[in-house]
């Protein structure tokens, strides 16, 4: 658990941090293999991800420093391409920023029911229904039995 009691103005700026995570995972139109996917910010994931980062005494100062360098009043209103440029401009000075955020962010995003539906994955826990698995190819099994 965190022993970091410092203030985190950038992490605590929900509107800014939502725009930041929306930059990391932007919305996407439907493709051949799946449906439309929302951006991470619009799913409301920012507060939970920020809380997870705050709870780590190692990660919180790293992320806060990186975000502080990016944060500006108009960041959330910028086009995606411009937000990407602003983030990339800080990665040399803050090389651990992205990994520190993406691990909790990706877990949050890819376990969200809306995202799972978009991916065509049943939005439920595995238990109790489980899943269907393709049967073993009978031709392959026959080959093996001939070698037994």
């Amino acid at each position, binding site marked *: *658990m965190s022993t970091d009691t410092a203030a985190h103005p950038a992490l605590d700026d929900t509107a800014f941090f939502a725009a930041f995570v929306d*930059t*990391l*995972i*932007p919305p*996407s139109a439907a*493709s051949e*293999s*799946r449906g439309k*996917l929302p951006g991470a910010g619009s799913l409301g994931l920012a507060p939970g991800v920020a809380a997870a980062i705050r709870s780590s005494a190692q990660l919180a100062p790293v992320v806060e420093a990186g975000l502080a360098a990016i944060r500006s009043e108009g960041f959330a209103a910028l086009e*995606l*391409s411009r937000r*990407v440029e602003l*983030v990339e401009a800080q990665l040399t000075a803050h090389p651990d920023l*992205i*990994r520190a955020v*993406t*691990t909790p962010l*990706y*877990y*949050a*995003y*890819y*376990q969200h*029911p809306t*995202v*799972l539906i978009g*991916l065509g*994955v049943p*939005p*439920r*826990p*595995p*238990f*109790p*229904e*489980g*899943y*269907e*698995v*393709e*049967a*073993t*190819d009978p031709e*392959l*099994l026959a*080959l*093996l*039995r001939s*070698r*037994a």
Partner: protein
Amino acid sequence: MPTLSTPPSEVRYILPMPNEPVGVLIIGAGASGGAFAWSIADAGMSVLCLEQGPWMRQSDYPTNTMDWESRGATEFSPNPNTRITAREGTTGGPADYPVNADGTPIKPVMFNAVGGSTILWAAHFPRFTPRDFRVRTDDGVADDWPITYETLEPFYALNDQMTGVSGLAGDPAYPYHEPPLPPLPIGATGNALARGFEKLGWHWWPSDSAIISQNYNGREACINLSSCGSGCTHGAKASTDITYWPYAQRKGVELRTGCRVREITVGENGMADGVRYYDEDGVLQEQKAEIVVVASNGIGTPRLLLNSASERHPDGLANSSGLVGKNLMFHPYARIRGVFPEPMEGKGPGGCSIWSHEFYETDRSRGFVRGYSYEMSRGAGPAATAVGGAARGDIPWGPGHHDAFDALHNHTAGMVGITEDLPDEANTVTLDPDLKDSSGIPAPKITYTLSENSRRQLAHAVERGDEVLRAAGATDTWFESPIEQAGWHLMGTARMGTDPKTSVVNEWGRSHDVKNLFIIDGSIFVTSAGVNPTSTIQALALYIADSIKRNIGNLFD
């Protein structure tokens, strides 16, 4: 009351009530402890098992909740150090002890509960082959075991029945045996990879799996929850809390949970006379026993023996050979995965599909001695796909994120290469001078170096794995070698043998030094083979229990 730092010799015991002496005291309720307890209960002696972890509840396993992937990576991580961090501030209890793994490129992983590491294992269940027991004779390396495949064969078969093993009889890589249940479906990934092996003319076979393909002994067949590695909510995967333990308890075996053994005690006659342990309330207790059996895995067992040093045994109990804690073997793993244009289902028992022994036997033209097996694995969930892809640099953040994710999710299949790790006395479990568990007991420290022979095996496994994946239709591949978080198999740290100068226990698990002290876990392995060890660990435990029962009249001669 004694404090956690009070040396054992200065402790004055104030016990709430005396513990009745028992005939057999087992330390650890995992793979070996469960099998041994069930068997030894027939000997007519009272049997008690002390387990530092709790009983697990299937309703607590991650596959009951939407966040099953993140819970599997934190509170149910196989790495005890990760679990300790994840559970700080919770009421999870002190089941896990920390491990100083700074000195090893392969991190030891395990689980502490009734069932031990079988709670989180993949349940891949190969036996050793006959040649695995005679590597000195056949290949001139390491040492032969003092027992043979034939010694263990009846106990492999008994263990298969108790566990509920699914498989296909007739694998030419093994002496003929019949698993009690038909094989698990190998799925789209298994079918694709099997066709790749067929193209190359390489050996493959459906894995023997400790997962039931049909209803068996009150357990329901596997429904492909696909997260075997964080506990099986359905009970289809065999873990000894649901296989051996209910039967052992029915026979009268007592199992006390939350009990962490601090040391094994020795009487005036030089025999083990019991243990001192912290109970679930943290109170130091004493338990007397006629026979003490250690089943605490290849790290926990040497740790306990070294923590049991005394005036009579200054270098640790049962350690006149100096080999307690030495010859640690892990099984270095390589992961090789491919990207396929067609969909590859990610579901099914992750580690149980097909195996290959194509490169299992020694062929010195390959540049190494002994060999490795392949174990095909299925796909990952969406979150693990994203996190893993990001860590490798295959899934970027920003505008290209979704396309890169789409190319990987449900489009990968692959395998792990499991290499035979040869014993080396420089690879050790010792006691850390500073690190302690929550009871104040010194924690283990691992010192391990990957050998040149292992490096060459891993490189070969990666190259040949790439070849077979491309033969199966993969358009791209990647690998991780050695896999860091894969020290599942903890072996060799209290090896068996007939010579007390070069081994810790004899050919049926009895300490050379202390005649009523037995060791039954992976510590007693002489060599590691190139396959998962649990089937052999449990067969050994059953064999040792049988040996004790057969020799009960002159057990301590």
